[in-house]
């Protein structure tokens, strides 16, 4: 039989065990994938269009929604782009608080990715552990910001709340817990022969291809490219902190998971430094602090919680263009905002790491066995709402 006759088209999803809202259209020959095409758009909700009819502050919750497990990255990037247009700088304490939340978020986003990966390769223990260990971090973030996942913590000019009392001790407790917990993961999961057999050497992405395809985040670093926006174009408090860019050489599914694990360890280091170095001072730019009426301002100073006056909602941003990038949990987030001086952006382009990684589904699955698709899918930490926006 010719190849055309033997080929079979298989539709995987959008309702599939691997918990993802996308369809994979695979052409297979026997057990081998000849070609695989992701069919995305199942969660397309037109964030870019809606941003054009919302005010600048209303967009903050909007851009968080697409990547619910990694909201700080989007929030921070968007606000940084707006700040570039406004020409304001947040005070140092706010920079540190931003970094703190970003790192807490990075850890729990990595746990999320690893947990989902666990489900996909059939290890529910990994899922249970990762999601369980994610909770203490969510609790921390909740105490800091008031919400479990959708923080909207970062606003133009600063952050919304100051550190709560006794927060440092709680963070230290959680960090110690995580450190003690990490070896267990290696015993049970990463050094498990079954896991290794399913991940090692599967879905290998070479360094050249990773660069050529414009891959982002841990998937890029797992192929040996030491690119991390926190080092390349440092933002928030990162210039003053000491950390390393985690890379792996192998470029396979296992390396991608390992990058995440080691990044968790780096994040723990960063969080400790942040809490040690955090300076005293205001958490909102002076210019905006002055806009708060005096009686409210007193309350703000007492409670450490910013209460904005109504005029803040009508924030006008000068005309111009700005591009901001941030290294989120899943990779580099880009916001490109074109403003025409009105109350809403003229055009807001939002490029998320998952969207840049979709291309890997095509590239990595050529010639693999069907059973390897979930292992590769999971290792990319791909989050469909984030890709579809």
């Amino acid at each position, binding site marked *: 039989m010719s190849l055309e006759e033997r080929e079979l088209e298989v539709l995987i999803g959008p309702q599939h065990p691997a918990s993802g809202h996308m369809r994979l259209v695979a052409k297979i020959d026997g057990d081998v994938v000849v070609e695989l095409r992701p069919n*995305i*758009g199942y969660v*397309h909700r*037109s964030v*870019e*269009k*809606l941003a054009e*009819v*919302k*005010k600048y502050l209303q967009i903050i919750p909007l851009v968080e929604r697409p990547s619910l497990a990694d909201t700080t990255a989007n929030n921070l990037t968007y606000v940084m782009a707006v700040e570039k247009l406004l020409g304001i700088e947040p005070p140092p304490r706010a920079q540190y608080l931003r970094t703190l939340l970003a790192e807490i978020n990075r850890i729990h986003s990595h746990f999320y990715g690893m947990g989902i990966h666990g489900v996909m390769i059939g290890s529910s223990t990994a899922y249970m552990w990762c999601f369980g260990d994610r909770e203490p971090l969510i609790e921390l973030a909740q105490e800091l910001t008031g919400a479990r996942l959708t923080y909207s913590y970062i606003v133009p000019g600063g952050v919304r709340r100051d550190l709560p009392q006794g927060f440092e001790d709680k963070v230290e407790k959680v960090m110690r817990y995580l450190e003690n917990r990490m070896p267990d993961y290696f015993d049970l999961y990463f050094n498990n022969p079954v896991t290794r057999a399913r991940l090692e050497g599967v879905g290998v992405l070479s360094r050249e291809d*990773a*660069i*050529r*395809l*414009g891959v982002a985040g841990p998937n*890029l670093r797992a192929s040996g*490219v*030491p*690119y991390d926006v926190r080092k*390349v*174009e440092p933002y928030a408090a990162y210039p003053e902190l000491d950390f390393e860019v985690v890379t792996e050489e192998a470029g396979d599914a296992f390396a991608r998971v390992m990058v995440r694990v080691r990044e968790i360890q780096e994040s723990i280091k960063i969080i400790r430094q942040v809490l040690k170095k955090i300076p005293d001072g205001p958490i909102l730019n002076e210019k905006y602090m002055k806009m708060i009426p005096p009686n409210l301002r007193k309350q703000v100073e007492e409670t450490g919680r910013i209460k904005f006056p109504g005029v803040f909602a009508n924030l006008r941003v000068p005309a111009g263009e700005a*591009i901001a*990038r941030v290294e989120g949990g899943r990779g*580099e987030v*880009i916001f*490109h905002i*074109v403003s025409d001086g009105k*109350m809403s952006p*003229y*055009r807001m*382009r939002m*490029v998320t790491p998952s*969207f*840049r990684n*979709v*291309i890997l589904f095509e590239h990595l699955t050529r010639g693999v066995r069907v059973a390897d698709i979930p292992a590769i899918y999971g290792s990319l930490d791909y989050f469909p709402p984030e890709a*579809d926006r």
Partner: protein
Amino acid sequence: MKFEELKGLIEEKVRDLGAEVSGKEPNVIEVKVPREKVVEAAMRLRDMGFDHVKAVTAVDYPNERFEVVYVSSSYSNLDLAYFLVNLRTDLPYDDPRMPSLLEVWPSVLYQEHEEHDLMGIVFEGHPRMGERLLLPENYEGIPPLRKEFKVKTEGINA
């Protein structure tokens, strides 16, 4: 590498293409070329080390023009990674087509497809023109990101 230095270098490279090079401190360099020259300009940028595209943004200025912006940067050369080079080109409003840069930068595959889907720009030479990416298969009508496509709003001026 210094900003001015790089800007001068790029200017030298693409001057004969009729490109306007400008910059925004500290790290954004704008290169504007006519659409016939965009592939050539992209190739020269790539050869300088700008090896991938981070974002493809199409902006609609109704009844005037479309502007397509390729935000490129480097992964392989970490000195250049700090800089973003925006390759821009203008397209006439009634004929929004331009050559695809897929041959130069494979990383634009999905991004160009998305701008085609949502903004209705035709990238000639892109293998997936005419297919839907994010919108439902049976979507008809004006591409939603164009300004003439209106969504409902609340209140009087929201």
